[in-house]
């Protein structure tokens, strides 16, 4: 993995705050302590503790029967998770990078996702996908492939932006009776820090969060773009409501529509590429359901339809930047 990810500086924070990565590890550990059916499988997750340290210490704590290092075989990892799930276990599989879901895609979208519809057989598994760019990971370590997964009926897809949501959504995902894809953004692992509510915090899958209330414009986003958008719009001379959708499937249209009814203008922001993406789906839903409330066209700010390039100037040119967000907001506010 690229050094830049591990080298991301931890910002000084009060002791009560934990990082996004620590929240993931803690959710895994606490669910494994609470429920002996929960087990982890993936590549390099045991002795090494995971490519990003998400499972650090869990092999020592729970032993090799519950933290399983797997051969480099994503189809086998996802498929074995299905077999474990129908036998009463609660597998949480890690693929090293979200990009590698392509190698396990068939098992995920054809076997796991369709099983309940076809057979009334629930498949409770969690697939953790470290996603996202911004650290010169290049075309195979930087993608945000959530749209591939949103196209597969039967999969739930969540994408937390804060440590509290990472913990609460991962906990909910492990307890959910369906296959849940957990998109964890690599850039947030150490950069995102925040408090973790006490006492078994669970975030219901399918509920958006108002990250900041406002009246003039609704900005809908998720994952690493949430903090980027908060920072980018803080200095704008406008009241911007920022919605962190958190869950892409199912999607909380009510929260979005309520906000649009108030602001009448919407910017949909994704780090993922543009066409037929999560942003396209959200935009279409707003157009269908909120047309009468809109005072401006729904705008999308996304990566363009290109692979994510390696070199920093090229990558910056592709991924949405803070100044792009501010510019898009100014344009909409002036419309």
């Amino acid at each position, binding site marked *: 993995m690229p050094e830049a990810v591990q080298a991301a500086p931890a910002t000084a924070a009060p002791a009560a705050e934990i990082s996004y990565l620590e929240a993931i590890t803690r959710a895994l550990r606490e669910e494994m302590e609470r429920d002996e059916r929960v*087990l982890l499988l993936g590549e390099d997750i045991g002795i090494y503790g995971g490519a990003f340290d998400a499972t650090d210490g869990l092999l020592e704590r729970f032993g090799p*029967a*519950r933290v*399983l290092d*797997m*051969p480099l*075989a994503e*189809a*086998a990892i*996802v*498929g*074995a*998770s*299905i*077999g*474990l*799930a*129908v*036998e*009463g*276990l609660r*597998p949480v599989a890690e693929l090293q990078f979200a990009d590698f879901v392509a190698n396990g895609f*068939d*098992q995920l979208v*054809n*076997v796991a996702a*369709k*099983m*309940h*519809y*076809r*057979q*009334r*057989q*629930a*498949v*409770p598994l969690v697939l953790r996908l470290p996603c996202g760019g911004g650290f010169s990971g290049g075309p195979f370590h930087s993608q945000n492939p959530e749209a591939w997964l949103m196209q597969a*009926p*039967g999969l*739930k897809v969540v994408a937390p932006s804060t440590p509290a949501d990472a913990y609460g959504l991962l906990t909910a995902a492990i307890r959910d*009776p*369906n296959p849940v894809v957990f998109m964890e953004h690599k850039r947030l692992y150490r950069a995102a820090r925040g408090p973790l509510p006490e006492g078994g915090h669970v975030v219901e899958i399918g509920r958006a969060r108002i990250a900041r209330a406002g009246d003039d414009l609704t900005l809908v986003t998720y994952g690493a773009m949430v903090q980027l958008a908060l920072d980018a719009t803080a200095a704008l001379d406008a009241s911007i409501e920022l919605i962190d959708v958190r869950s892409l499937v199912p999607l909380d249209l009510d929260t979005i529509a309520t906000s649009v009814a108030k602001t009448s203008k919407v910017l949909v922001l994704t780090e993922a590429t543009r066409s037929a993406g999560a942003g396209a789906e959200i935009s279409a839903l707003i157009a269908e359901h909120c047309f009468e409330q809109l005072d401006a066209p729904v705008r999308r700010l996304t990566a363009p339809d290109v692979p994510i390039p390696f070199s920093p100037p090229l990558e910056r040119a592709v991924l949405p930047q803070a100044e792009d967000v501010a510019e898009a907001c100014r344009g909409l506010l002036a419309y």
Partner: protein
Amino acid sequence: MKSSPTPVPAAASPAPEGLTLEDRTNLLRYMLLMRRIEERGLSLYRQGKVPGSFFDGRGQEAIPAGSAFALAPRDRLCITCRDLAAHLIRGVTPRRVFAQVMGLADGITAGKDGNVHFADPALGCVSMTSMLPDMMPVTCGLGLAAKTHAEDRVALTYHGDGATSNGTWHEAMNFAAVLRLPCIFILENNQFAYSTANDTQFRVHPLARAEAYGMTGVTVDGNDVEAVFAVTREAVERARAGEGPTLIGAETMRMHGHGAHDDMRYVPPELLERWAVRDPIALQTERLRALDVDVDALTAEVQAYVDAELALALQSRPPDPATALDGVFAELQPERLGDGNAPWSRYGGTVMGRA
């Protein structure tokens, strides 16, 4: 590998260990059940009562019958498209199979999926998908679950010769061997993957790869139901003893097209003729007649049972279109897979259709 059959005098072969005469008769019974159901299914297809196409395992009945017969109720299966007898052994009734292929509400998937794309989880089975060998990794998971639960279960699945070219096959073979899983993979080499013959599919016979992966590989005459039983039983014992997975290579011939729509123009007629004399039902019939079993009475009993089941299935209704949107997501926590029927005398399960 054998690309053409070697005739053997079946009647002369001794009974495999553990099989009573009644067991040997029941092996024939399940093959007859499968063939009768599939013959009637093909008729329904020609009458326009089966949407899509119809897929059968004519000529391959010995493989699912012999292998599934060797399993205990607690064992698990992922059954594929030429293996109807395995479903019957586990306890799926013919009426549910007929309703399934006709896309009716009483089918196992209630019309959500068709033909042999089904399984009854309550009987310890996980439903196949069209992409083969997709069930091999799932079978690995079932085996891994048995290890995790410290339960004495084995998991068995089937695949064809074409599936051995697919990357998922290699992942699962390696995975099962590395983890020493209690899994049995049965390769049904029926000589053709749709129209693609073995010599276009692989340079090295897949069974020869078993050792390279680090698992036991056994070849068997896939048209001899008792031989299939015997090798499966041995594989089950190895798996239960912690000796890991087995690849069983069952040589056979697909005597029908890939589906009912396929006229098999690519199969040399003389190849079909050579295999026709090795029909698995005829072989077992010959054996049992030599032991004074009344095969005609058995056949009549099976046919009457299947026909009565079909009459019941024809009373099933089409699914309500409103149900098309149901069940994409589970609302409830799942039940574990249940245990299935096991008619082998060792386990004393129910024997299907016995008058």
